[in-house]
């Protein structure tokens, strides 16, 4: 894997967007391991992982001239690969409902608890406001680590350009800061523990 610094990354992305195949090869050299690791981390089959990997690179072909921040193409690829994995997993979980109306009704989802849903939405707003007051670095790190499944520390290191050894301590500091902000939003201690677990 050939590491690229921010300046090199931006230059290589721009060159690939302009049609330079050698630049594309540099991107593949630098990030194919990351994309592969993200797909395999989702425990999908090797065939599905290959599909997801190729689809991820096709997405980059489609969007390479529309990236908001070309220096963060690694994060973009990791996020896209994760999203494609979840789509594959979601498709595999979908089943055809077959049976009588009564049988299907028995299997239907339980009715929505509107009060609980509203509370959840309110909390979501509080969490979003609390998050927005954290530093950009903390926001990036916590959002990344909240992914399901979470990325490995090696992936986080590559995506955010942080040494692996500093991820745990930084996460701890960011979570403490987030807890303070959640408290400022009026979320009670017991509930904060659940949210931050």
């Amino acid at each position, binding site marked *: 894997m050939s590491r690229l610094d921010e300046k090199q990354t931006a230059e290589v992305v721009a060159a690939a967007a302009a049609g330079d195949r050698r630049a594309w090869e540099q991107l*593949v050299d630098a990030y*194919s*391991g990351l994309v592969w690791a993200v797909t395999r981390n989702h425990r999908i089959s090797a065939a599905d992982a290959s599909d997801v990997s*190729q*689809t991820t*690179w096709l*997405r980059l072909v*489609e969007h390479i001239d529309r990236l908001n921040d070309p220096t963060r193409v690694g994060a973009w690829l990791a996020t896209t690969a994760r999203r494609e994995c979840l789509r594959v997993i979601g498709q595999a979980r979908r089943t055809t*409902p077959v049976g009588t109306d009564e049988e299907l009704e028995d299997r239907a989802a339980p009715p929505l608890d509107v009060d609980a849903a509203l509370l959840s939405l309110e909390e979501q707003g509080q969490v979003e406001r609390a998050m927005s007051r954290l530093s950009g670095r903390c926001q990036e790190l916590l959002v990344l680590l909240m992914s399901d*499944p979470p990325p490995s520390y090696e992936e986080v290191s590559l995506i955010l350009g942080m040494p692996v050894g500093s991820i745990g301590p930084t996460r701890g500091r960011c979570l403490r800061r987030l807890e303070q902000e959640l408290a400022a939003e009026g979320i009670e201690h017991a509930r904060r523990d659940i949210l931050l677990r």
Partner: protein
Amino acid sequence: MSSSPGKVGVSEAPRAVREAALAAFDARRPGTPVLDLARDLPVATTVGEPGRPPYRELRFAQEGAPAVTVEVDGADDDLVLKVRIEWARSQDYRLEVSGISGLGLPVVKGKPPFEVSGVLPGLTSLLLSTGVAGSPDEQRWQTAWVRL
């Protein structure tokens, strides 16, 4: 907000995966706007047709461009695509269904909706155009790649 690290680290991708990533570059169509995948859902069949798999509905859209809805049905090795195109302007289109392997390139022309049969499964993108090919009034779009 659990965040225990996963066990899989970053390693080399297998050669075939790396080659597929390189091949993705050859599938680009410079200057052709991409209609992003906005929806990908199975549409369940009715209770009266037990055993029949759901068909799949894909929708592609982009601001200032036609919205394309594709219904995917048929057998695994002979897919049938029903393609609807929504845009402010009603006009003739040329629709090409292309695979990443370059195999199977059905082309239809005229006013939508279109029905295209004999489509092979695999990574697929639709290429849509209006106007006279090669003329200044020609407009082209491609859908995002999806695996059919």
